[in-house]
């Protein structure tokens, strides 16, 4: 769906403060992908993500959406912005309208939908994020932190994007609410058949929810693969100063100590299964 070819991006190109932030990035996002984008702070994750919805324009390289050239002369950026929804960190800070419903309708109205269409889309999105009708005419400021965040996400969903990008959607939340938010995202992905890009620092969550992992380091995409492939490369990730899920680290250590496991695990369920199998084999001997 969305394809980037050898994208380079330099801040302040030509001035004294030039900073080459993205180097030679090529990627492909297909329907049904749930991509986890990980990397140390400052590796360029947010910058890359801003390219995907056209907020930033690459200084070199090409971006294609459904085979159309986004950087072509006649390509309207608003089209890309409709299709690629971007939810920033702490999105509840952007709520500004008098009522919840109006705020969620802001995006669709900007895209040119009629009031009725916008309202219908907004109501559907609010329902999908778990905000029921009693909150429609309430001021967004009266909601709890978690609810505000859901409303902000609904605001982007209401534009009916095909790709949804979320930058640290669980930042600052307690563990239970965090899991609720991720479950919600997974749910929405399945229902709407979206492609999702999740930028996160929490390796455990990335391992649990995504089906592809991209690793960024100093502006380059250094690793791409499914969670199993990427997280099992513990040494490489350590060199890049990127953590791995605790469970992966632990199972790696077990293997090093001579305990026969097939490979490092990426989730607690995974590890439980493997260790029990190993145990049964031992007992059966």
């Amino acid at each position: 769906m969305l394809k980037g070819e050898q994208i380079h991006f330099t801040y302040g190109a030509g001035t004294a403060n030039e900073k080459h932030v993205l180097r030679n990035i090529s990627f492909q996002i297909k329907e049904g992908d749930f991509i986890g984008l990980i990397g140390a702070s400052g590796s360029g994750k947010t910058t890359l993500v801003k390219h995907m919805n056209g907020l930033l324009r690459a200084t070199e390289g090409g971006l294609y959406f459904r085979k159309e050239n986004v950087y072509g002369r006649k390509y309207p950026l608003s089209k890309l912005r409709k299709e690629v929804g971007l939810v920033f960190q702490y999105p509840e800070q952007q709520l500004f309208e008098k009522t919840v419903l109006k705020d969620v309708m802001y995006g669709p109205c900007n895209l040119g939908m009629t009031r009725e269409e916008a309202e219908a889309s907004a109501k559907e999105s609010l329902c999908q994020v778990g905000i029921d009708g009693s909150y429609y005419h309430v001021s967004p400021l009266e909601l709890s932190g978690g609810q505000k965040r859901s409303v902000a996400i609904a605001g982007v969903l209401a534009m009916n994007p095909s790709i949804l990008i979320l930058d640290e959607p669980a930042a600052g939340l307690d563990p239970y609410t965090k899991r609720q938010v991720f479950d919600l995202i997974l749910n929405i992905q399945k229902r709407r058949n979206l492609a999702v890009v999740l930028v996160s620092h929490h390796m455990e969550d990335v391992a649990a929810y995504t089906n592809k992992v991209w690793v960024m380091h100093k502006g380059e995409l250094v690793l791409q693969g499914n969670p199993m492939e990427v997280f099992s490369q513990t040494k490489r990730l350590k060199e890049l100063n990127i953590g791995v899920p605790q469970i992966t680290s632990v199972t790696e250590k077990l293997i090093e100590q001579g305990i026969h496991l097939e490979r490092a695990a990426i989730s607690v369920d995974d590890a439980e299964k493997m260790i029990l199998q190993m145990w049964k084999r031992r007992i059966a001997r």
Partner: protein
Amino acid sequence: MIRDITIGQYYASESVVHRLDPRTKLFGVLVYIVILFCIRNPWWYLACFLLLLGAYRCAKVPFSYVLRGIRGISILLIFTFVFRMLCTPGEEIWKFYFLSVTWEGIQKAIRMTARIALMIVGASLLSYTTTPKSMADGLEKSLLFLEKVHVPIHDMSVIVMIAFRFIPIIIEELNTLMDAQAARGARFEEGNVFQKCRGVTTLLLPLFLSTVRRASDLAMAMEARGYTGERETSKMNPLVYSRCDRAAYLCIILVPVFYVVVEFVPKWIR
């Protein structure tokens, strides 16, 4: 990126001028500006410029920085020059339809433009060699006598310090907010006036709320560290005059004295 921009650019370097007490530098700039407004003879402007170059050299600030200040206001300078040149009545030199260039016009244009340019370059030297905090401290100490008439100088100085600290942060937050709303289709760059206005309204409330929240958090943190706003406070690096400052004050006072002597004494003698 935005966070690196401080108000007034500070050029970090080790020089006599950098080490001077900020009050000395503030005094110097004040005297300099007064002189600029007293000067009539255009040759003195050249003298001022040479003096400035000397000062920049002492401050170890590169010449390109002199030009930077001017570049920022170049349009204003050009406009002032052309306006003065064309709109001053007097002896005509050249006429183009209804636009006339007079000799007095040219003189006035040069004088005004030179005055503005020199003022900016001189004031820029102050900001290149003095950190915003130093300047605030210098102003505070100079104006402290006003506390006797209940002007809250110390509080104002704290406010200025907090402003310097938070303005870059708020600007960055504004940028993020703009990105977030743009991702929802708000228009800030393209579109007609109404659309742009509408775009701005989406920023006002969130920015206001977050700033108030910041202020509340900060107030709590300040109270937790013992700030009362009532008691006397000391300083880690109090401003103390050194020998260099005394020498600098002498130099600063000599400049107007020199000007008065050279410009007026011959007239009085006659």
